[in-house]
Each structure stands twice: as structure tokens, then as C-alpha cells.
């Protein structure tokens, strides 16, 4: 075990479960981000924040976010992006499974190593979607598609910090009281 594992942030905040309000709000926010009017190669390189937030909660809050929610979110993404129904659902469910299996291992690392782990998961999700579309006869999307999982992994650190904040504030309030 390394010293970084025992930082107070990682140990204490998540003892307080995040409320359903925070989970819902973060997912809606991520969906809004994904729904921005992206176009051209920016669309290919768009980091899938819904997936990042989903993996975050599947790791930190495995009791309340699981594969059922992943499936539903995937359907919502398919409708929003007007793709074949079920392809985001399949990718999200597979990645959520990966997050559930790797959960304990990943969370024992500091943020940088966590980022590398989730990068693998995000690349898996992109690969599933690209492969499905190639099967359906689309042409290869090009190198910009490789940016998407990389940008999503880069968002992992800031997002972890952001989603810890409400818990931190609550903790300070309680320790002050």
C-alpha cells in the first residue's frame, strides 16, 4: 500500500454516500454537454462525459449505479445522437461491468493511475461503437475518433474533484457542527 491511498479525501468523503440528487444532476449535466451542437471532426473527438460520469458513480457508488442505469443512459444517447438503438447501451453496459470488476483496484490508486485505468475502459467503449458501425457498413471514421477516449480520460481527474466537492463541503459542515 502506498501513502497516497490513505489521503483523507479518498477515505472519508465516500463514506458518506452521495445523494440521488447529485447523481441525477451530474448525469443530466453530462448529457447536456454531450448534446451541445458538435459538428464535423469535433463531433468525432467529443469526449463522452456521460460515460465518464457513469463510470465514476459505478466505481464510487456501486450500490446505486449499475448496469441497468448504464443501459437506460445508452438508449438515451442513441436517441439523442439518432444512432441505431442499443449500440451505446451495449458499450455502456460492457464498460460498467469493467468498472464494477476493476473498482477496488482502480480506487486504490492515485488520480494519475486511475486516469490510465479508465482510459482503457473508454477505449473499449469507443471500439465497441466503431466496430458496430463498421459492421453496419459505415466507413472508418478516421484518426479524430481516437481523441474521444483520450479526452474523456483527461476529464476523469477534474470530474473526480468536482464530484467530491459536495461531499467535502458536507463533511466540513458536519465537523464544524
Amino acid at each position, binding site marked *: 500500500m502506498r501513502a497516497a491511498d490513505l489521503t483523507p479525501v479518498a477515505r472519508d468523503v465516500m463514506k458518506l454516500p452521495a445523494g440521488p440528487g447529485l447523481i441525477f444532476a451530474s448525469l443530466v449535466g453530462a448529457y447536456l454537454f454531450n448534446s451541445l451542437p458538435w459538428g464535423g471532426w469535433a463531433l468525432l473527438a467529443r469526449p463522452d462525459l456521460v460515460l465518464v460520469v457513469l463510470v465514476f458513480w459505478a466505481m464510487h457508488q456501486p450500490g446505486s449505479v449499475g*448496469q441497468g442505469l448504464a443501459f437506460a443512459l445508452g*438508449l438515451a444517447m442513441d*436517441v439523442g445522437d439518432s444512432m*441505431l*438503438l*442499443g449500440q451505446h447501451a*451495449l458499450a455502456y453496459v460492457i464498460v460498467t461491468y469493467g468498472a464494477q470488476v476493476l473498482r477496488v483496484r482502480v480506487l486504490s490508486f492515485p488520480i494519475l493511475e486511475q486516469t490510465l485505468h479508465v482510459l482503457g475502459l473508454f477505449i473499449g467503449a469507443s471500439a465497441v461503437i466503431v466496430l458496430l*458501425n463498421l459492421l453496419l457498413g459505415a466507413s472508418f*471514421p478516421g484518426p479524430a475518433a481516437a481523441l474521444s477516449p483520450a479526452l474523456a480520460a483527461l476529464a476523469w481527474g477534474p470530474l473526480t474533484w468536482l464530484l467530491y466537492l459536495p461531499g467535502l463541503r458536507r463533511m466540513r459542515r458536519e465537523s464544524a457542527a
Partner: protein
Amino acid sequence: MIHEPPPFFHRGPSPLARLTFFALLAIATMIADHRFGALEAVRLSLSVLVAPLQQVAGAPAIAFSRLADYFASQDRLMRENSELKAKLLDYAAEAQRARLLQAEQDHFLAMTPSRSRFATDGVLAEVLSHGRNPFVRKLVLDKGLTQGIKAGMPVIDGEGVVGQVTAVGTFTSEVTLLTEKDQSVPVMLPRNGLRAIAVGSGKDGSIDVPFMPVSADIQNGDLFVTSGIDGTYPAGLVVARVTAVEKNTTYVFAKITARPAAGVDNHRFVRILTAQRPSPAPAEARAEERRPAKDRPAPRGRRQP
């Protein structure tokens, strides 16, 4: 005695069992959607839930473009105005000729049971966004089921055919562009009446005309218009101009590339042609033909993922 874990360790099925279940469900969903198109109701009801979020996300960009329009320079507006007037004069002559032809056609139609193959009715629609599917380029329009839009309707702009409505929501509809892979339009050359099928190539916005013999009379600069024989696109809409003809006698077919006449990428308003071709005349009217009355052919555009 079998030892069971205490009840507070019960978590339902294992993650792997859940994965199997949900992955199979996702694959079943894809098959149902792709092969049978059976999930339109699910898509429609989900899109009602999702639409407000999308509107919120798209609002800043739309507001910005409206603002930019508002402050558009006087100079540009005047230039645009004079261009439009020149175009109007161009079209006026054609319109007068068309009126004469229409009158003649009406006269002939009064004598024959068949009906018009030319488009008349249409709905003006604003382009809300370019769709967000990176694999298939689409336009999202602001007219939907409530305005009577149906999948399969052709969409044109001032210059020619843009594409075809392939999915309809309550208030929006999606247009798959002519240049997309596997989007095909039956066309003809007005110059010599040659019939062909134009197929989107899916890359760099060009259109292929496959399966034309090397001896076919097609030249650079030829203009393809819809032939109207498929029952989806009305006849006479401009589709594309030939940009390259490669006739290599070692191959059976010539390689013909064309550019769409419509500004497939750069328009704000388009017209959805709502007049569907009438079904063939009732069976008794064609009793002498001894063939079963066939339904109108299905829309050509295969709905893409």
C-alpha cells in the same frame, strides 16, 4: 448443511450475469431496430423525454446565430438582395413556361386516368442542426409528425435535391443527405433521356453513378435530374452535375463521379415535398393488364444507424 452468506451480503445476480443479460438485451434491441424497424415507438417516446435537454443544450448556439443574423452588415444584405432579384428574373421566364406546360398537362390529365408525377406541395423547414451521429451525416429540421411529415419525403433547396427524410420525431425530423453512403436516387439525363441511379459515395460529398456501360453517352458537366420512376422523388428535380467520367475499356462499367447541385452542407432553409405520389389506379381500371395492383414502392432510403 450448505452455508449461505448472511442476507446483508445479498446483492442480486452477479455482475457477469447482469452483463450477459444486458448485453443480450442491447443486441436484441439493435437487431429489432435495424432489421425490423420495430422500435419506432420506443424511439419516439424516448425522444420526447430527451428533446427538452437537447433544446437547452442547443439554445446558446441558436441564440448566437440569430444575433449574428441580426447584426449582419447592410452591405451583405444588399448584395444578397440584388443576387436574389437577378435569380428571380431568371426563374420568372421558366415559371411562365412552366405555367403553360402545367395547363397543357392538366388538359391531358383530364383525359387520362394517370396522375401527375411532378411535385407541387411542400413545407418550408428550418435546419436546426447537423445531426450528432458521426457515422452518418444528417440534418435535423424543425418540422415533424405534427406538421404531417413522413419518412421518405424528399427534401430540396433552391438548387436541387438535398436528401430524404429518414426519421420523424414529434416536432423534428431527420434528413439523410444525398451524398451519404448507400443513399440512392433514380436519375436521368434530360439531354438524351438516359436513366441511371445516383448513389452517395459517403466521402467528400460526392455522388457515384455506378453500372453505366463504357459506351454510355455521359459527358463532363452533364446535369442529372430525378426520373420520378421510383415513386419517392418527383420527376425533374436537379440532383447532380457530372464532374469526372473515367472510361477504361478494361472494365465493364465507366466510373462516373458527380457533385450534388444543392448546397448539401450550407443552407438554413429547405423545402420538404409533402405530396406523396398517388397509388396506382385501382385494379378494375387496369383489369386488362392482368397484373395484381402493386403498392407504391417503399421509400428507397435505407434507414441508417
